[in-house]
């Protein structure tokens, strides 16, 4: 995702980490300070508890309640209805179509982002300094673009009548694209949105991977080359294993971000995504704020979070493994 969506920082581990000193590092931390750390943490935990903890609990309770417009205005109490919201959502064929569409969409975004990011990072190692600077400027500029601006610009690039893309494509012999509406069909429109997501997400991946690549020891690659490995062999057996922790982290983060794509679809479709454009985030939003069924909307959001739990677990395990969270 782009800068804005890069709301989550990630930590790049020192790749060739120094072997841990034999003495455990903890004694160097101040011990026996009793309440001090908790006092320092208190404001942070208080705020997170209010704006994150409470809503999270509320999300779960809501998904077991009948909660519509009347409950919102306080005319009616919220009734507990057990698993009714879930059975209604899971029993709806539409929901499963949306789930499959979301997974295909997110998988496409993640794969294209990671592959393009890797190729560009490798390319940047081979170009002259001035080309590298140019590419970096373009990448950081696209990374820094607010998602809304990027979406608006893509809408303009792909405009049916006056968009530059159709005009350029029509210059090819035998191609007549003027007036072609890219958003007439769901798959084509989502492909454009996927391009937008990938365009915004690649810079983060390239810059992180480039930082990682500088830490791959040249001697190792040289040794592999002397042993007769080709370019692919060196990459596959030397570079890739060393970069693996970074790649795992970038991939898990991308999955989480790309499963949560919302503004791109929402703004691209003028605030009312057609059924063919619905993915889980917009579907949950629709159910809550358009149909006014907050209970079912919450159930869908909760299912999305549960779907992501596995990915989050991989991410956390990686963070724990590289020792950043000791």
């Amino acid at each position, binding site marked *: 995702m782009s800068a804005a969506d890069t709301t989550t920082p990630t930590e790049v581990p020192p790749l060739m980490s120094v072997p841990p000193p034999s003495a455990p590092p903890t004694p160097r931390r101040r011990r026996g300070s009793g309440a001090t750390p*908790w006092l320092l943490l208190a404001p942070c935990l208080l705020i*997170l508890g209010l*704006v994150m903890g409470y809503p999270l609990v509320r999300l779960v309770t809501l998904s077991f309640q009948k909660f519509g417009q009347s409950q919102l205005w306080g005319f009616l109490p919220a009734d507990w209805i057990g698993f009714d919201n879930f059975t209604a959502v899971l029993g709806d064929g539409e929901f499963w179509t949306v789930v499959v569409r979301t997974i295909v969409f997110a998988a496409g975004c993640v794969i294209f982002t990671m592959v393009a990011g890797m190729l560009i990072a490798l390319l940047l190692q081979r170009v002259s300094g001035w080309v590298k600077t140019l*590419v970096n400027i373009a990448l950081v*500029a696209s990374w*820094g673009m607010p998602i809304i601006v990027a979406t608006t610009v893509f809408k303009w690039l792909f405009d049916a009548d006056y968009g530059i893309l159709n005009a350029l494509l029509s210059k090819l012999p035998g191609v007549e694209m003027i007036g072609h509406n890219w958003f007439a069909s769901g798959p084509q429109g989502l492909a454009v949105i996927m391009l937008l997501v990938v365009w915004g997400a690649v810079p983060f991946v390239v810059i992180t991977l480039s930082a990682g690549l500088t830490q791959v020891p040249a001697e190792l690659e040289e040794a592999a080359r002397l042993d007769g490995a080709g370019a692919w062999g060196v990459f596959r057996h030397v570079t890739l294993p060393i970069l693996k922790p970074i790649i795992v982290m970038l991939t898990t983060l991308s999955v989480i971000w790309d499963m949560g794509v919302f503004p791109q679809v929402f703004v691209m479709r003028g605030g009312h995504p057609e059924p063919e454009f619905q993915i889980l985030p917009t579907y949950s939003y629709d159910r809550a704020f358009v149909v006014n069924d907050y209970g079912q909307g919450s159930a869908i959001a909760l299912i999305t979070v549960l779907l992501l739990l596995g990915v989050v677990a991989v991410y956390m395990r990686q963070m724990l493994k590289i020792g950043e969270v000791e």
Partner: protein
Amino acid sequence: MSTLAPAGRRRSKAGWNLLGLLVFATAGFPVYWMLNTAFKPAKDAIDPDPSLLPTGLTLGNFSRALDIADFWGPVGRSLIVSLSVVAIGIAVGTLAALAISRFAFRGRKVVIVGILAVQMIPLIAMIIPVFLLLNDLDQYDKLSGLIITYLTFILPFTVWTLRGFIVNIPKELEEAAMVDGCSPTGAFLRVVFPLLAPGMVATSVYAFVQAWNEYLYALMLLSQKNQTATVWLGNFTTKHGTEYAPMMAGSTMMAVPIVVLFLLVQRKMAAGLTAGAVKG
């Protein structure tokens, strides 16, 4: 590659450079086209055979963009929200980052894992309960409500990023100051704080950019009359349809200050990244 003759190596370098320029053109094109459209005469923007090069320089689209809808109101509100979020986020975040990077205490790991996990929850999943919460607290359609909501993603970010910067400051410096008679607070203010300041600036700018760019919560938690800058742009369609040239002018006004800020701190954040510190 080392086996290639110098001429062959130069030729392959030229090939890579060409490919690099292609990447530059592709990645940079949307930004270029935004600027190109923003500054070209509005009638050239609806030329069915558009020219790739600039066709003239006008500021007409900018004044039109400012006419279509109030621009400075939303920008002012975005500024209030983003600056407040950064101020609170940095103050609260620094304290928390100190706690988890400089103290050993029971439950430290749980706190760290909790902060990491919190930022993994997609914002969109939280919008329904957050909306209801603000509704209950009478904070719907208030900037204060939006500010506190933005802390959900800004706070974990500042804590984790600042922690990375603090970890890189050697503890010996603080210890030496304390041996020389500084109190722990004095050691922090005189030794750690000056070293941490550049990292805090970079983190602040980065957090500012994130808050400024947020769309979903701004759309849902504020009414039309209180909209922020991102929502202003998202609604940029008049009853005459979409006027793309002014819209690109509006996009330019939104994006250029942010991209410049971003370019300024990107280096610093990237330096932290290679040092095994943090990146956002």
